[in-house]
């Protein structure tokens, strides 16, 4: 069975090593926070100037001076810190965050990301922090449905939408499969209710199944941070 968005968020959360510093993009990726295990010690970064952000604020706890990157009121956890925008993006661009989880319109087999612009001629261009986030963290994960409403694959040999970053994505979490992408090609880490053959047919690219003992199962391409807690 294909995963629901919540189930997918849980799969991503499972793969985030304990103690990681993580930026969760706007939209779907925000859900990952709800599935991080108690005591995981994962520290959330919001690029508008904060580390150790807590859950969304409710009721009387809403403070207009404390929001996340989506301008949603949030809370502060003990051990939080605030910093200005240049320092916040220096933290990101300098490679100090372990994982960034982003949504995507398309990801290419080599890890190119397209998630800021559909290229529609009447769209008002708006990039926000997407390009900084795409290339900044030690690992960039993408969370998306594998096929769009028309059934077209969003994991593609080459992106047709304008790029957000080149070769920046290391792993793609989708409702039907998890992939490692990069210069060596596309590896299937796990599937949800779909066979490798069917996947291969529907995706226009060569796929390799990762053997169960492959160290890529637990370590990402650019990981240099804390050890993974997943087997």
């Amino acid at each position, binding site marked *: 069975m294909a995963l629901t968005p919540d189930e997918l968020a849980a799969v991503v959360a499972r793969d985030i090593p304990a103690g990681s510093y993580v930026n969760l993009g706007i939209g779907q990726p925000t859900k990952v926070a709800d599935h991080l295990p108690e005591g995981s010690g994962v520290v959330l970064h919001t690029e508008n100037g904060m580390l150790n952000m807590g859950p969304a604020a409710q009721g009387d706890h809403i403070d*207009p001076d404390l*929001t996340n990157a989506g*301008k949603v009121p949030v809370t502060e956890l003990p051990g939080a810190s605030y910093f200005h925008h240049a320092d916040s993006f220096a933290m990101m661009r300098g490679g100090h965050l372990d994982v960034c989880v982003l949504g995507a319109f398309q990801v290419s087999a080599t890890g190119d990301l397209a998630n800021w612009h559909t290229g529609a001629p009447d769209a*008002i261009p708006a990039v926000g*922090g997407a390009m900084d986030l795409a290339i900044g963290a030690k690992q960039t994960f993408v969370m998306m449905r594998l096929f769009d409403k028309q059934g077209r694959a969003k994991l593609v040999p080459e992106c047709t939408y304008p790029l957000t970053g080149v070769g920046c994505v290391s792993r793609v979490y989708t409702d039907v499969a998890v992939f490692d992408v990069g210069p060596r090609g596309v590896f299937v880490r796990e599937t949800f209710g779909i066979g490798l053959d069917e996947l291969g047919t529907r995706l226009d690219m060569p796929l390799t199944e990762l053997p169960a003992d492959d160290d890529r199962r637990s370590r990402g391409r650019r990981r240099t941070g804390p050890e993974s807690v997943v087997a």
Partner: protein
Amino acid sequence: MSRARILDTVDEAVSGIEDGSTVLVGGFGMAGMPFDLIDGLIRQGAKDLTIVSNNAGNGEVGLAALLKAGRVRKVICSFPRQSDSYVFDELYRAGKVELEVVPQGSLAERLRAAGAGIGAFFCPTAVGTPLAEGKETRTIDGRDYVLEYPIKGDVALISAHRADGMGNLVYRKTARNFGPVMATAATTTVVQVGELVPTGDLDPEAVVTPSVYVDRIVRVEARHYTVQGAR
């Protein structure tokens, strides 16, 4: 640049801003937006302005009100398109305002460079994307970069939490955002604060914007808004 002056009214604080000025406007969405200074700028009447800010206004307050008043020639920002940015959207689609989209981290770093006397810097963000088109690129130590130039302001309008009599500033939570870098990047920095305290009352270890960057200060009553929908 000069000794900070504490002014009685918002109108004094924004006096002398000339037509055609580049105005840096703090805030991330509504958090840290200097609403009173923008209202003062609308009354003051300067036109043909270039506005540098993260967003391009929400609803009909703040930057949106300035845009609606027809004073803005060009917006340099990272994310103009928000759920409630209809004022900007209409002006843009009507060809009445120019737009330069800059990745959020590059925007912050270009402002910092202006304040720090850096002539230009090689930045990894946006490499290989449409936002790098026409920019000088270089490979350094195996990584690709684009050359980014400083963004200087004639005036910065920012909002801070508290100022002392010399002009030292502290901010509140994520309302800090662009204020500290914009204060360094403008010829004249104008600050609206919620509270004025005697010189000596701020902890010297916790000052975020040192007095040297502040030119004019005016105390205003707090006005807060929240917004949802986009970065």
